[in-house]
């Protein structure tokens, strides 16, 4: 019996690796500016596709009076912990529609968790440190990632099939690419390029004003 299951598991594993497709997404703005921190979410067109298990835990740390990361992409149902790595207090809040909350973080307490159960954009701030700013993008799609500084993100191990691929950025304006369709084939890599429109003045998390009191 045990042997049977082992064989089954190995077969499944082999099968999924063997037939996995890769999706490579790049995001640019204007004349070829690479856009980092763009959230890419992937939605299978067929409900029968066996998607990879969504990651349902993530971390939004506070360190050196900054949030890290600046943009966190999670799927609905993800529990995010908020460890405070600083030796002073942070008072993290959000009044965004998908999740309103206030976390009072003192010391390196890692037990503070928030479950993000509704899709949307959650803007985070700290009531004590005005420079702190971060976004949690809660996606209703099972696969989600964000671009690195060179504007790229790669999803491997996706089952072959048709997908909607969505892009979001904190400084996105209307009029750029929003969503693209793609069909992934087994053992092949597909590329998608998004061209988005961004505001000329970008939101960024500035390091704390060292002069500030």
């Amino acid at each position, binding site marked *: 019996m045990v042997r049977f299951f082992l064989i089954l598991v190995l077969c499944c594993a082999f099968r999924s690796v063997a037939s996995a497709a890769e999706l490579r997404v790049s995001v640019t703005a204007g004349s070829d500016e690479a856009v980092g921190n763009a959230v890419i979410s992937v939605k299978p067109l067929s409900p029968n596709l066996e998607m990879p298990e969504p990651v349902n835990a993530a971390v939004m740390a506070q360190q050196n009076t900054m949030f890290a990361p600046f943009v966190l992409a999670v799927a609905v149902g993800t529990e995010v912990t908020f460890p405070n790595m600083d030796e002073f207090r942070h*008072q993290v809040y959000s009044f965004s529609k998908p999740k309103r909350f206030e976390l009072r973080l003192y010391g390196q307490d890692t037990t503070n968790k928030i479950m993000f159960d509704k899709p949307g954009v959650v803007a985070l701030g700290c009531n004590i440190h005005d420079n702190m700013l971060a976004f949690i993008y809660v996606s209703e799609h099972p696969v989600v990632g964000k671009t690195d500084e060179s504007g790229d993100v790669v999803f491997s191990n996706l089952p072959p099939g048709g997908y909607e691929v969505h892009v979001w950025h904190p400084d996105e304006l209307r009029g750029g690419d929003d969503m693209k369709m793609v069909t992934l084939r087994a053992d092949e890599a597909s590329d998608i390029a998004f061209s988005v429109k961004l505001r000329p003045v970008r*939101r960024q998390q500035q390091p704390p004003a060292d*002069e500030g009191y």
Partner: protein
Amino acid sequence: MKRSNVTALALWPLLMSGGAGADDPFPSIRFDFLADARVTLADGEPSWFKDWLGKGRYGGTHWAGNDVEGLRLAEASILAKAEISWDLSGFVHAKFDHEQGKPLDLVEAYLEYKPAPRSAISYEGRLGLMFPHISRENVGMAWTSPYTITPSAINSWVGEEIRALALEGKAKYRSGAHSLSLTAALFGFNDPAGTLLAFRGWALNDYKVGAFSQLPLANLPSIGADSDFLNKQPLWVHPVNEIDGRPGYYASLDWDYAKRLKAGVFYYDNRGDPEELKRKQYGWDTRFWNFYAEAEPLRGMKLISQYMTGSTKMGRQRYRGMYPVDVDFEAVFVLLSQKFERNRVSVRYDWFATDDNTFVEEDNNNEWGHAWTVALSREFRKHDQLILEYLQLDSWRPARKTIGYAADQEQSIIQISYRLRF
């Protein structure tokens, strides 16, 4: 230091009642210190601070011209921030300065209530002795400017004469990268504000007045006990003082886009009664507008501009309802600063003027002038700052003739400051 004792007493029950869990040890107090060591080299007329009409905190000597002052302490500040609960904190800033009327004096002391925003509109409030948020330069610890040693003419005056014992409320609306704040306050204890602007005019110096300290005025023929014009105006001003028992108010509207574009307008009226005289100080009727714009066009670059316009009146009305002192004032500056990692370069241009509307024969308070400031700074250790500043002042003030100087004066001041923080 009477008031700080009162503040401590007021805080006492709150300090004692805080819950003290291991992860939540309220209240907590944090202390910070700032010491400013200074070397200065100045020429031109002697400083207003030494009872003349010079526009710098330092100036030449009355007889010899140039003046070099060796290493000394320009100020030492102690700041205490008490976190009483998550939403309530207390702040005290005391300053030691051997040139100050009271060597150790109180600069600010207030309670701040600031709960975390629960919706797009959030509220906060302050109660106590405070600087209204006028200066866009003095954003550093202990009301210093990270850009220069010497603030602009506008913010020098704010430091010298503007302080409010206020109840201040603020509502802030946030939408995406935009935020819009409306602030309003009722205040007292700032009735003599305007005295320096009238009898001395604008100045550029980093002196901020303590609540219990007086500032000197030049021995002009129009004021002082021997004067036939205003003999009840002594040769000093005590700006943080309530004369007429009438509260004043200020209000401001501030817009912020992604913390990189800012603009705002501020209005102040101390509702002083110009005819009221108490404790040798008049209630000056001082009102002004302050406008500002601030941008960060490139990373590490700051462009800041402020424009102030207002008027001040003082004394018993004389014929045709004219006040003995009735002066309009106006000033503007543009500051450009660029930070390169631990280094910073700043350049500022100041323009300022006052316009005397009455009794110019007896008491001429007209003036105009402009100034260039160039500062280089470098950070050392964690937050220490070494600043080298060159200040060039050029101004015209006919009242100088009454104390033996030409109306036109040019002046250069070179300063080196080391701000030690711990």
